[in-house]
């Protein structure tokens, strides 16, 4: 019990922060109300520090993932908090400050907004801690439910409400599907515990093949979770929602649910394992294999469709947010390739072969880079006839931005090149690891498709580069929002993207986080658990199947 509390310390801190933020955000005094954002940031900072020092959880299917995943959540969360400043209640608070209105907590959303944000991040952290399907389901829904509201209330425009409704309904459909999948998985294995499922599946595979019910459950789970990561066939909402929501919220939607979904997928796939004989659902004799055939073909189809659909749809976009939304779909497809590759089981494999580590690293890089691009959108606005400033969303608005707003312009250029994966920016290393891990798993065809897609992506990312950098500004320069922290978030992201020279530490952390995931079969569990308690993890050769 107490060890569980230690593992959940970051979540607990975040939850307490959430409660404080809720109260503070409704305070009658403006000075106190404005503390909502700093307090949220402080809570994330503490949670992050706690997360780094969280021990490995031997009862988890991904024993080492917790420190990395939670620290990543807190870190990107901090950037997001900076970006989210001033998203809701802007004109209302301004009116209160001018003395035109008396403050009434009923009319303000700030408390809820930041509280929902923290709830969502708590859910994400809980996903990383999950050891059980029910836990995983609740955590996934805790991630998503607040985001439906956030998307809806992020602007006062009708399009936000439309976005919220679409997001909610499709989200509910996705949740229903993966919950159904979880139920079937339970039906096929007799347990909801992920390690229990792993053992049951390994046993079934060793004795003639995996139960088709369990297999159908896994496939349905993966399809349902594809909503969270914005993958085909549940990607339809992405563009509408990202465009409808305010840019800071879209930046969050591109990271938080996606990360949660990938962690959930990793957990489920780790329960299946990557050591099945090619062409069958039974274990490979040498222990080095792939995912079971039916999962493999499903995921491969999803990966290929996802990256292609995302990239092709992005080609014609005039809206920056829609473009980034489709590119977000494409990035999901890239990551799925490494997810298919899985952690390398070969004993002496280097870190370049670990697909799960590659995904975890890519998520971080994508999250940070993406925040940079959305920060630029969030910082630009133009006064509307109705008095409320509306954020800019047309590619043409970027024209000559490096000249008119140099800081924002360069943030956009650097981050777009980062998303493109131009070496030696951070994005390149992330993509490079996808390449190496997939190739070392023998997925050369998928990598070639990935490469083709990256080239198509250049077509639209370059618009985000050339328009600000090379073109001459036309008409009035767009106005900027009065939130220095948003610009700061963008600059920070761009700095991180440029700081690609020393990603070793983070890569190591990501790889360590994915270490030993899903590579264990029952015969070796006891040995592993002993080695965990002895804390001699890294010296032990990774166990392989010895059947």
């Amino acid at each position, binding site marked *: 019990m107490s060890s569980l509390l230690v593992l959940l310390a970051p979540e607990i801190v975040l939850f307490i922060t959430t409660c404080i933020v809720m109260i503070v955000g409704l305070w009658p005094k403006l000075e106190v109300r404005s503390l909502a954002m700093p307090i949220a940031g402080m809570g994330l900072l503490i949670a992050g520090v706690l997360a780094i020092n969280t021990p490995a959880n031997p009862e988890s299917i991904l024993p080492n993932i917790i420190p990395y995943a939670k620290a990543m959540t807190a870190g990107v969360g901090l950037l997001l908090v900076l970006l989210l400043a001033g998203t809701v209640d802007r004109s209302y608070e301004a009116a209160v400050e001018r003395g035109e209105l008396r403050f009434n907590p009923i009319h303000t959303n700030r408390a*809820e907004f930041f509280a929902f944000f923290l709830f969502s991040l708590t859910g994400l952290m809980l996903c990383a801690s999950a050891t059980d399907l029910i836990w995983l389901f609740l955590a996934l829904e805790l991630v998503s439910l607040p985001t439906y509201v956030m998307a809806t209330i992020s602007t006062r425009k009708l399009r936000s409400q439309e976005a919220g409704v*679409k997001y909610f309904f499709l989200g509910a459909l996705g949740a229903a599907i993966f919950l159904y999948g979880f139920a079937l998985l339970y039906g096929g294995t007799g347990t909801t515990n992920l390690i229990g499922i792993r053992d049951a599946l390994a046993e079934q595979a060793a004795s003639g093949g995996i*139960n088709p019910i369990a297999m159908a459950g896994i496939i349905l789970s993966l399809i349902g979770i594809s909503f969270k990561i914005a993958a085909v066939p549940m990607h339809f909402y992405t563009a509408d929602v990202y465009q409808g929501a305010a840019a800071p919220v879209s930046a969050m939607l591109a990271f938080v649910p996606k990360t949660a979904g990938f962690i959930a997928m990793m957990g489920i796939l780790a329960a299946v394992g990557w050591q099945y004989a090619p062409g069958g659902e039974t274990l490979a004799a040498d222990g080095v294999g792939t995912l079971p055939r039916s999962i493999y073909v499903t995921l491969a189809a999803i990966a290929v469709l996802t990256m292609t659909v995302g990239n092709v*749809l992005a080609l014609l976009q005039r809206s920056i947010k829609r473009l980034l939304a489709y590119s977000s779909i494409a990035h999901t497809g890239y990551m799925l390739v490494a997810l298919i590759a899985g952690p390398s089981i070969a004993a002496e494999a280097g870190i370049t072969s670990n697909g799960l580590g590659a995904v975890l690293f890519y998520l971080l890089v994508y999250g940070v880079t993406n925040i940079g691009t959305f920060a630029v959108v969030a910082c630009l606005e133009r006064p509307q006839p109705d008095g409320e400033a509306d954020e800019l969303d047309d590619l043409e608005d970027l024209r000559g931005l490096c000249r008119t707003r140099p800081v924002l312009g360069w943030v956009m250029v650097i981050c777009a090149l980062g998303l493109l994966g131009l070496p030696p920016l951070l994005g390149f290393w992330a993509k490079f690891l996808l390449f190496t891990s997939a190739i070392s798993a023998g997925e050369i065809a998928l990598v070639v498709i990935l490469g*083709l897609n990256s080239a198509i992506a250049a077509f639209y990312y370059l618009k985000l580069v050339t328009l600000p950098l090379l073109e001459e500004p036309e008409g009035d320069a767009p106005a900027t929002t009065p939130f220095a922290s948003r610009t700061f978030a963008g600059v920070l992201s761009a700095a991180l993207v440029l700081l690609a020279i020393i990603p070793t530490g983070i890569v190591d952390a990501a790889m360590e986080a994915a270490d030993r995931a899903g590579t264990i079969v029952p015969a070796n569990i006891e040995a592993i658990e002993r080695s965990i308690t002895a804390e001699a993890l890294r010296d032990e050769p990774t166990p392989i199947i010895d059947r």
Partner: protein
Amino acid sequence: MMLSLAILALLSVAAPWVCRYAGPARGVVLAAFPLGIGAWFASKIPAAADGEGIVESVAWLPELGLELSFRLDGLSLLFALMVTLIGAGVLLYAGAYMKGHHQIGRFFCYLIGFMTSMLGLVLADNLILLFIFWELTSITSYLLIGFNHDKKESRAGALQALMVTGLGGLAMLAGLVVLAFAAGDLAGVAGGVWNMSELPEGLSGHAHYPWIVALVLAGCLTKSAQFPFHFWLPSAMAAPSPVSAYLHSSTMVKAGVYLIARLHPNLATGTAEGLWEGLLIGFGATTMFVGAYLATRQTLYKRLLAYSTVSSLGVMVMLIGMGHPDAAAAYILAHAMFKGCLFLVAGIVDHEAGEKDVAEIGRLFRAMPATALAAVLAGISMAGVPLAPLAGFVAKEKMIKAGLDAGPLTALLTALIIAAGSFTVFIAIMTGFKPFFGKASREPKKHAHEAPWPMLAAPVILAVLGIVYALVPALFATPVVTAAGEAIKGGPFEAALRLDAFYYYEISLALGLSLLATLIGVGIYFGRGLWVKATSPFAKLDGVVGPAKMYDYAMLGLTKGSWAQTRVLQNGSLQVYIKMTLVAILGMFAWAIWRTGFLPSVGTNFERTGLLEWVLIISIAVSAIVATRLGSRLATVAVLGVIGYAVAVVFALYGGPDAAMTQFAVETLIVVIFVLVVYHLPRFAVYSGLAVRVMDLLLAATFGGVMACLVLAAGSQELFAPISAYFNEAAMPETPDGQSAYGRNLVNIILVDFRSVDTLGELVVLGIAAIGVYTLMKLRDDQEGTPVAEREGDEDQSEEGDA
């Protein structure tokens, strides 16, 4: 070496300031740096020539296999000299050429940035480092081609170049990674071998060898504009002339050739039938012929040169594939001189006479004698006129000799070489002779005059070096070419290389063929009107199915696809999204079943189904159907409620009274909430036609059927004991180990014992909710008399309530 790269990188960043403060001297100031670096490289010729070369290495990201490792051997040296020395000349030239351009600082920043990347590319020993520089050359070249980005053709050309080379580059990255892992396999190094100098023997025997060759060549052939990827190079001629001279003749386009040469010792199979050699000879020979042929139909100065460059690149690839590294190296060096010179001359003619079309101009000799001299020398060299003691002649002799020594392919290759050679002679006359001595059809647009000295320096020096190359080869040609050739071959040559022109002054078949090619070329020049007419049917064909057209079609297809997808799939309708999702899920199931044959067996055991169950089943089914047919929302909600209650009865029947109670309560609550909400909504409206509804019905029935089958399948197997047994046992007070819960009411025990913390949590939630409700009620009281700012107030409240 790293120092030289650092100096150039800094120079690139500093270039705008240099341009601002150095004024007209900017060209000289900027050119001094690469010149100095080039001199340093020249001093390293002997050191680089001995097998190992000079190595510098700093660990960067050792875990990723990345080292900042550089290696200067003969091959690198040849390219490094071209990059720095021609680069210095081009900088000097561009200083005058770009005079008065409002973005001149930015231009030099890009150009020197490119120089840095290109130098890094040829020096890098690490595969990842090489790829990084490779991509940087692509992106700087993109910026340079599109430098005059207010012109549409500049933008299109830049994007086309980047798309083609970028696509190849990413394929190459995959190839390099496969190569590194395969090498790791062979060398027994975990994590792959990433340094090219450490690649093991025997790669051609590896299972992934075809992948490596295909993917690496995809990068090299696109970068080096080999047919059918050649079309980007002529389009890239929208760049300013110094850029064309530097990137698209001497350096960047040769990056692919460089990498082919670099990996040749490792990837070659040693026989002409090998995959590597076969592809190189096939692509190279085709490109050589097609490029030269296409050039004959051009009249724009730079496009002529561009197509002829395509042909030359084909020659280089072919020569490497044929196993004549000495000929390849000799040709690369010679080509850099004559083609670089001619491109610069084209720039001068454009700049000083305002003319781009060689068909129109002539008789410029009087106005620009020095330019004409350089052009003629370079032209003769390019044509490889027999017995002219110029670099081009030597290279051509070596090429023809190689063609005559090609085993079973001798006849074919020699014919292609002679044909391409004839076309090249024609191009040489058109570019080196015609503008200066030929007939002019009209006066030049500008008053033609000689170029200033900084623009003349590079072309004249390059032209003169062409003579030095062939007359005094020992001065620089022989050592450089020998070192490079040996690096490509992967071992020392048996005999010393002969690059002096007089060595080839002998009556031989090669010389005769060369003479023949020259005569044909001259013939085409005089009959060029006829030639254009004779070949126009092919040009028409090329306009319909040619590679450039294919690229356009592909781009158009992508855009069309994007448009169609947006209209059909992303039309913003939630109904369509849901339908598409369901269709896709069904499709994926079908795909998984089709690919793997996995199929859960569906049980149809209805023995235990009694009358009551049948009643429930039928009432659920009927309710579901009725719900879809009703016109009123309230009635629909009520009917849905029936389904919920029926499910609750099922729970009650199968021993779950607590679940049944919960279900009853929840169902009632939901109906009540529904009624409250639905009350405000309008009646149903029918928006869809019959066809759509039938489709919807089919989709719903299929999806429901699949889900129902899964339930039946799950229900038909009993894998494990029901959990109630466990709870029964654990709850009993009689259990011997004393771990029991001491209770008989299972539901109570679960609530207060097994899941007591959950219960506590639920109580807390209820408490918080109560506080929330109380707060809201208090607020409602306070709200009286407050100005209502926005209507949103009420909505917020309902959200709060839901949460």
